[in-house]
Structures are given as C-alpha cells and as structure tokens.
C-alpha cells in the first residue's frame, strides 16, 4: 500500500481531478500524538506500507512532530522509501544506502502517480524513479550509465582500445541498471563486450560509446 499524506486537499483535487480512487493508495491524516511512540504508531497503523508520499510542509497536529522525525520513523520502522513532495521543489532522486527515495515537485508527482501505481500493481514493487521521471525513468537510468562511462573514459582517445581492466569497470557500471524492462538490452550490451574481447576483437572507445548511444536511442 502507498500512503499519501497531503494536507492541501484542493491541490490534490486539482491534479487528480475530483475523487481519486486506486486500490493501492490510501489518503490518511498522520495523527500520531507522541513523537516518542512514533515507531510503534507506524508499525501498528501502516504495517502494509510499501512507500510513503509526504507533503514537505505537512502540518502535524502535534507540533513536536517534524517531517524529519516522520521520515526517520518510517525508515526505522518499515525500511521503506519516504518521498517528500512540495510545490517549490525540483525533482531529484535520492539514494539513501540501499533505498532509493526522492524529493519531488508536487505537480510532477501527481502527474506520474497513476502510472506509478499501475506499475506497482503489475510488478508488486515500488519504482520511485517512475514517480520522478514518469515513463522516461528508464531513459534516466541509461543516461546515468552513459554519463558514468563517459567520465571513466574522460582522458581516452576515440580510437583507444578498451582493456580487460576497462571492461571490468564498464560492466560494473552497467550492472547498476537493474530495471526489468532494460535488463535484456543491458545483457546484450554486456555480452557484446564480453564476446568481442574474448575473441580478441578489439573495441575502441568510440565504438563502445556509439553502441551505448544506439541502445539509448531505442528508449527515446
């Protein structure tokens, strides 16, 4: 279940168009009375939460409760992503240890919410990048991989050949792309690198970068 803590009802209605119902989202007030009992309160009220979407300026009934304490509370109690949204925020993914979370513009979040919930329903897992980038979240992952590989070959000429050491680095970067929808294409890229180098068929920097660009072009 996704829990949405939004105290701007008008904004919610404006973006979601009247009554918004989805079996996997609940709109609830956060009415924990005592910050010291936050973890227990969360465990008993939101045990089924897979992610929390929390207005960054949410006004809690208890003034001792802050956004940070709620965020920490959910992470400590359930180890789930807590996405903060706000009208003034730019949208950014945030990596906190193993957890991917985000700070996100409220307009962007509401626009991508349906698609995010549908994806969660289909795959049974929350995909925070989908909430941030919508359907371009895969492109974001590929661009990330591309940028990292570019940084790695920053001081190489186009016709330099990729070495075995380079290969290990590049494959390591590519393994960070774990999205199910990309895994086939990433595997193909990895196999192509492996096979060519195993067969002493050299890969130049330019060829590698072109291959990556071709892969990305599929996802525009």
């Amino acid at each position, binding site marked *: 279940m996704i829990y949405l803590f939004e105290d701007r009802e008008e904004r919610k209605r404006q973006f979601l168009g009247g009554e918004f119902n989805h079996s996997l989202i609940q709109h609830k007030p956060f009415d924990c009375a005592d910050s010291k009992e936050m973890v227990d309160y969360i465990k008993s009220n939101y045990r089924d939460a897979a992610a929390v979407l929390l207005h960054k300026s949410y006004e809690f009934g208890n003034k001792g409760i802050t956004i940070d304490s709620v965020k920490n509370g959910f992470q400590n109690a359930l180890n789930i992503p807590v996405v903060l949204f706000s009208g003034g925020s730019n949208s950014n993914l945030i990596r906190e240890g193993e957890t991917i979370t985000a700070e996100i513009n409220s307009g962007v979040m509401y626009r991508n919410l349906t698609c995010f919930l549908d994806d969660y329903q289909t795959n049974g897992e929350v995909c925070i990048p989908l909430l941030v980038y919508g359907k371009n979240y895969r492109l974001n992952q590929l661009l990330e991989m591309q940028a990292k590989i*570019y940084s790695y070959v920053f*001081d190489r*000429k186009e016709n330099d050949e990729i070495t075995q050491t380079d290969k290990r680095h590049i494959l390591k970067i590519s393994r960070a792309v774990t999205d199910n929808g990309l895994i086939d294409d990433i595997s193909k890229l990895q196999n192509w690198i492996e096979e060519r180098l195993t067969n002493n068929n050299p890969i130049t920097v330019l060829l590698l970068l072109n291959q990556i660009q071709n892969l990305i072009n599929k996802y525009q």
Partner: protein
Amino acid sequence: MKKYYILSKTATVESYQGIFNNFGLIDTEIVSYVRAVNHVFVDNIISDKDSLILLIPTILDPFNAYSYDGVEYALKYYCHFVSTKKEDFQIILLGSEEESAFWKHCDYSSFLKCPHVSYLKNNVYPIKEYLAHIESVVFDMDWTFCIERLKQVNVKKPASYKTHHSITNEWSIYRWSKCLGITNVEIQKEIEDFLYFNYLKAIYSETGTEHSELLYLFEKGKILLIDDEVGKGWHSFFKSFCGRGPSFSSIGDSFKNLTPEEIINNAEQKVKEYNPDVVVLDLRLHDDDFEIKDPMQLTGSKIFERIKAYNKGIQIVVFSASNKVWNYLPLASDGVILKESPDLSVNENYTQECIKNLRDTLMNCLKKSYLRKIYPKIEKLKKLVKQSDYFGDETDVMLGNIDVAFDLLAKSEEANEYKAYSFLQLFLVIEKYVGLESVFDKTDTSVYLYNGSNRYLILKDGEQKENSKDTYYQSVVTFEPPYFIFKRGSYNARFIETFFKVSVLLIFKFGKSSSNELNWPILNKKRNDIAHSGAEIKDKDIECLLDFMFFIFDESNTCWRDIKDAFPVESLEEQIIKLPE
C-alpha cells in the same frame, strides 16, 4: 587573459585537475559543485575582468541524469552574465551523448543556440582542441541577439502557485527598487537561486527613470504594510519609498508559524497600536490561502473586515501578486496595487506604470487620512444618539443619516461638494431633533419646550399682522446679532427656525446665558451659506459640527433652567379669554 573553470559535482575534482595538468591545461581550475553554487564564487567571477571560460557537464548528478542539472546551472550563469552585461565569456556544455540526442532529451537544448554557448563531448581531447581554438578569440556580444535567443530557451515557470507568488514578490521588489534607484533592498538569496528569477533578470532590461524622485511619497501620515513577504525586501522598499513623507511600519515576518486566526489577531492588534491612516494589505497571508477559492475566506480578507469594523476611515489598499485580484472587489477596498508579475514585464513601461499607480494610490489614500480621525467621532455621535433615544422608532433612520454623512465625506476627494453634502446631512439630524414634538410643542399662538415633565413657554401671544406673512411673538430670548441671549423680548418669523430652536435649547436646556456657544451661530451660518450659495466646507467645519452635536446629544450636559425663567403657563380659562370672539 582567459580564466578556465570546470564544474564537477562528483568527488573527482583532484583527478580532473591531474588530467588537465597532464594535458597542459594547467590554467584550468576545477571547481567543485559546492563552491560553484556559492554566491561569493558567482559574484567574484562576474566582477572578474578576465575572460571566462566555464566548462559545465550537462549532467552533474548522474543519478538524476534526465534532469540535466548541469544545463540548468549553465543557464543560471549565462543569465547572470547577461543581466550584468559581462560579454567576454564562453560556456561550454560537456555532454556524454551525441549532440543530436541531447537536443531530443533536454528541455533546454535550445540554449545551444545562444551566442557564446557550445557543446562538446565530455572528453579531454575535444576540450583541449576547442580551448586551443578559442585561446586567441576575443569575445564580444550582440546583446539584442543574445536576449532574443535566450527568450527562445523559454525557461519554465515554477510549477506551484505559491512559488510563483514568491517570485512575483521578489520580482516586483527587484524591478521597483531598480527603477527608483533604491539600493538598500536585499533580494532573498533563496529566490536568486531560482533559474526562472535569473532568467527574468536577464531577458528584461532595467527601467530606471530620470525623474524617479517625482515618484516618491511626500504626503504626511502613517502607512502600515501587512504582508507575509515583508521580510523579503518589502519593508526596506517601502521605508525608502516613503522617504521624508509618511511614517511607515510593517508586520508579517512572524506569520509563518502562526495559524490564520493568530495572524488575524496579530494584525488587528498592530493596527490598534500603530493607528495607521493607510493599510497596505496582502490577502494571502497563510499557506492555506493558496488553496482557498472564495476570496472572502482569505486571511487578508478577514483582516480587512476587522480593520473596517474597528475604523472605517482607515484606508485599505489591497496589495496583491495575483492578477485575479479583481475577484476581491466585494471587499470594497480603497485601492488596489498589483505586484509586478513577470508575465507583464514584457511591456517596457510597465514597471514605471506600476510605481505610478503605487504612488498615486497611496497619495490619494493619505489625503483621506482625516477619515481615520473622523470615524471615531462619527461612531461616538451614533452612540450618543442611540443612548439618548430622542428619536424613538426613527433612531435607525438617524443613524443611517450619520453613516451617509461619513460615506459622503469619504467621497469628498472626488468632488469637494460631497463635504458640503456631508455637513448638511449631519445638520439634518439637528433639524430633525428640534423638529420633534417631544422637544418643541406648538399651538396656534404659543411654542413650548418640553423637558419630559415640564413645559417651558418660550413664545406666546403669536399674532399675524396685516401685510405680513410673519407671526409676532413675545419671546423669552432676544436676538442680539449674531446670536440669542436670555432676555425677554420679541420674535417674529414666518416659521420657527432651527436657529431659534437650538438657541433656546442652549439657553434653557443647557443653562447657557446666550446661544453663542460651541460656534453655534457660525455653524448655522455655514449651513445657510451651503444651502444658498454652495459655500466650501473644510474638514475643521465638519469636526466643529460634530463637537457641537456631541454636546447637544449628550444627556450629561443637560442643565435645565428654572421653570420660572420661561413665561408662566396660562390656565385654560385664561387661554379661552384670549380666544378671538
């Protein structure tokens, strides 16, 4: 000389530096992201007289690659350079994709069409080659072309209304201060970080005016600003704008942590303490206000009602960042000042028009500052009239007349006649009072003044003479121009005038020796002058009339003369004897 900087968000500043040194690019300084976004660094490179070459990766944070955060930073620098007219610079975007792909993916790819912007692969070889190519190039700029191209980048407005509202505030403060040459107004650094704000500064040139001194306020009085954005620069702006004219105070800085009800109470308290002539009032003072559709439910609207209930004479000018401000007209404000929304700055005269409107609106309201002083007197008069209950069932009508007098006074800036109409409207209450049968009772030949238990015979033996429309009476008061005194004599008139009746009241009800009290003869003459020749009325005339009315409607001033000071009341038999045969 050229200075080279490359921006990096990753922890590879040292390694980048090593690579650049190895490649002979030793003059290139690698700047960490943290340092690059610091205002001191930005200010320093802008004021630097050397040519600047900034190399900025299109993607600074690979985890958020699709946001192209590097392009946003590059644009922000570009806007800084354009707004400060620094022309010897070059921005090189370092991309990790084909330029054609960059055009497809990045929302701001048309930035590449701007002069002094290039796109290179993020690799040391093309960088070295390009830097060698531009080493001897002298940068100059066609600003018109540059701004046209920059406009085509079409930087997005902030998505939220609240953020847009903040930007309109900052934008107005920035533009208006520049226009007036006010230099002590600090724009919040938080807003300066918004790309959109910098973009606006770059595409709209400043509009200083040669005669800005004429736009300041010079009318005396007191102005209070109620605005949650007051700390963002409005206080400093208004303080300078008021100059040596009106006093100025503000409230709003502390609103952020208050509930709407607390904000309303604090504002009301401040109004009562400061007692301003003019309140400049923003209507959206709490975050909840950004969700409210009914304008009358806004925190500012409720403050408006409270202030008007406290003193209707305080002029309230609605100060709004929303061009939907016309929805608030049910508030019947005394003026509207629209903050300068960036959308409207397209018209290059718009800033000056805004400031002229600000000046004219405030000056107009300051000229009405007497209303703030008069209103408590109007309220006091209504209270006295109500307490006295002279008018019985007609009391509400009289109170309405007094309200109308105030409304006419409020309109007197439009035409001075309204002040005279207001005077007449108040005078009418006196006329109605002395016209009551419970005050003066008249028979064919006599006039009595009634005090609730006794009848004072004031005029008697009324007689109509041949060839005259006047009636001739024996009177307990005598006219010794320009007023009546307590002395028996005669009185002849076509009808019993208000001047006579009020004079009798002063002498008999209030125990005065003559009616030359509280400027009554002057007030009566003013009334006649207005009615017959349209005489001009001044504020002090209204105040003088009000003071007179306080006296006669205040029961505590009553000091009835002895009944023997009037004519003895004749018995029924005596009256019958006198009847004409």
